[in-house]
C-alpha cells in the first residue's frame, strides 16, 4: 500500500532530494540568521527572534515538501492523513496546544521583551527568550527558569524594567526627641547629594506612624530603573552616615518607665543573682 506513494524512486531523484535538503537547509539557516540580525538592529530582539522562527519553520516546511515531491510523493493524500493525525495529536497534547496558543497571545499582548526583568510568582529574572511553549528566564542567582506560556498568561506578572524610571521606598525611623523638620531637611539634602537619585520626580517624605519606639517615615526617591539596587545600596548608608554626623538617633525598640507623666525615666540597676540572667548582662 505504501509503495503506491513511491512510484519513481531512483538514484537521480535521491540526488535531487539530497541537493534540495542540503542547499535548502543552508539557505534557511543563513537567511534566518541574517534576517534576525537586521530586524533586531532596526526594531528589537523580540521581533528579531519571532521573525527568525517564522522563517525557519516555513522554510523547513517548504523545503521538505519540495524534496518529497522530487521523490514522487503525492502530497494530497499525505496532507489529508496529516490533518486526521493532527487532530488526534491535539487531543492527546492539550497542554502543549494550550501553551502554544498562550504563546501567541503573549506575543500579541507583548507584556515584556527579551532582556526585560520580570517577576512571576516571586521569581525574578531577566527574560532570555520567548518560545512557542515557554519563556526562558535567567534568575539573578544564575539559575535557569522555564515558565510555561499558559502559566505566564494565568499569573500576575510584574515587568520591573518596562518603565524607564522607578521609585525606591526607604523606611526611616528617628527617635521621638528629634525635630521632624530638621530630619526632613537632612533627608532631602542626602538625596540631593546622591548622584543616582533623580532630582525630578522630586523625592517625597511621607509620615508613616508614631510607632512604639520611633517616628516612622517613608522616604520615596526616584532613580533610573536600571539603578534601583545601586540607589538602595548607597542611600541607606548615606542616611546613616549623615544622621550620625548630625547626632540624629535611629532608635531601637526600648521601654521607658516613668513614675509620673512628666518625670525623667527611672534608672534601673540590676544587682544580685537573678535566676536565668547571665553574668555578662549584669550592671
Amino acid at each position, binding site marked *: 500500500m505504501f509503495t503506491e506513494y513511491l512510484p519513481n524512486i531512483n538514484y537521480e531523484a535521491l540526488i535531487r532530494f539530497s541537493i534540495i535538503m542540503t542547499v535548502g537547509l543552508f539557505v534557511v539557516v543563513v537567511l534566518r540568521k541574517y534576517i534576525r540580525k537586521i530586524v533586531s538592529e532596526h526594531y528589537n530582539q523580540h521581533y528579531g527572534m519571532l521573525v527568525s522562527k517564522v522563517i525557519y519553520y516555513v522554510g523547513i516546511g517548504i523545503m521538505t515538501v519540495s524534496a518529497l515531491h522530487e521523490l514522487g510523493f503525492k502530497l494530497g493524500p499525505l496532507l489529508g492523513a496529516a490533518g486526521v493525525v493532527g487532530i488526534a495529536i491535539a487531543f492527546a497534547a492539550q497542554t502543549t496546544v494550550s501553551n502554544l496558543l498562550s504563546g501567541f497571545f503573549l506575543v500579541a499582548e507583548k507584556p515584556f521583551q527579551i532582556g526585560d526583568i520580570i517577576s512571576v510568582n516571586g521569581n525574578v529574572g531577566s527574560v532570555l527568550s520567548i518560545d512557542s511553549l515557554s519563556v526562558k528566564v535567567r534568575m539573578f542567582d544564575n539559575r535557569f527558569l522555564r515558565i510555561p506560556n499558559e502559566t505566564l498568561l494565568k499569573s500576575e506578572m510584574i515587568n520591573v524594567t518596562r518603565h*524607564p524610571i522607578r521609585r525606591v521606598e526607604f523606611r526611616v525611623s528617628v527617635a521621638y526627641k528629634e525635630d521632624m523638620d530638621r530630619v526632613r531637611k537632612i533627608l532631602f539634602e542626602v538625596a*540631593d547629594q546622591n548622584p*543616582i537619585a533623580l*532630582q*525630578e*520626580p522630586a523625592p*517625597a517624605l511621607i509620615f508613616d506612624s508614631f510607632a512604639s519606639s520611633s517616628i516612622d517615615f517613608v522616604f520615596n526617591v*526616584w532613580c533610573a530603573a536600571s539603578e534601583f539596587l545601586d540607589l538602595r545600596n548607597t542611600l541607606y548608608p548615606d542616611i546613616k552616615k549623615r544622621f550620625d554626623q548630625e547626632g540624629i538617633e535611629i532608635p531601637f525598640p526600648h521601654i521607658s518607665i516613668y513614675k509620673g507623666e512628666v518625670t525623667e525615666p527611672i534608672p534601673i540597676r540590676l544587682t544580685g543573682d537573678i535566676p536565668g540572667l547571665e553574668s555578662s548582662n549584669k550592671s
Partner: protein
Amino acid sequence: MKFNVLQQWGAFSPNNNTIHKFELDETLTCFFTKVSNELWIASKKVTGSEKKTVKEQEDWTPSTQRQAAKDEIKEEAHSQTKVREIIDFDPDLKWSRWALRDEKMNIEITPLFPNMPVVVKPEYQFKLFPEGSADIYVRIPIWIQVKAISEGGLKVTEIPSMLLSRTWFGSFLEGELCYWFKTTARRALEEDIFKSHLCVCPIKIVNSSEEELEIDKLCLRTEQLSMFKNDKSLWSDHMTIEYKGGNNFSDIIVSGTPPKEAKNAVLAASPRNPVRKGFAQRTFRLINELQGKIG
C-alpha cells in the same frame, strides 16, 4: 620624578619621568604620565579641605617646570620602581592605564560638553510676558576629553569636571535622563561668571505665545552645541529658543558660530551629535503628569 603643570588646553607629550598636572579652577585636577607605551591617567575632584592634599605646592613651582622641560626624554624600561614612584606620589589617586601602539605619545586635552542633555534650573524663577524676550547666560560644567593624536586622534577617555546630579525630563512612561545643574541665569556678563570648568551659554528666549512663560527650568541639548574658547572663557554657540505655547515644541536655533560676546573665540570642540540649525525640541518644563503624581 619631575612634575609639570599644563597651563592650557592643547597637545603635550608625556615623559617617562614626569607627572603632568592639569587643573580646572579648584574643582578637578587631572594627572598624566607615561610608563613605556602606557598612558596613565588619574583625576581628583578637589573640594574644600582637600585642596592641598594632592601634593605640596612647592613641587609645582615654575622652576620645577623649567627643570622638567629641560630634561631630555629618556625612555626608561618599564620598571616596578617607576610604577611604585607613581603610586606613592598620591596613594589616593586611582590610575587608569592605556597601552598605546607607539611609545612616542602626543596627547591632546580638549573641553567638551557632557554626554547627556543638561537641565538647568535658574535659582530664581523669572517670567516672560507674551511676545516678550530675554537674553540670559547660563553656565554648564564641562568635561575633559583626552585624545591620542599620535594614534590618529583616537579618543582615550572623558573626565567630567564635576559630579552632576541627574534628573528625568519627560513623563513617567517616556523621557530622557539628563544632568541637573542650578544656574543663576544672569542677564549680564560680569567678570566672576568666567570659570575654567564652566562653559558660558548665551541664550535668547522668545515668548511667541499669548500666554505668560514661567521659566522654571530649561533642557539644553548640549550634545548638539559647539564649544569655543577665547582668552577669557569657554563659550557655546548662541541659542535662540522660541516658545510657542501649550505643549507645542519649542524652536531652537543654534548659531554654529561664536557668540557676539566672544567674536574672536576659536572652535574648541565640535558638537557630539550635530543636527540641523533649526530644530524643534521640548525645552521648557511642561509635564503636568509628572508634577501631579508624585508621592
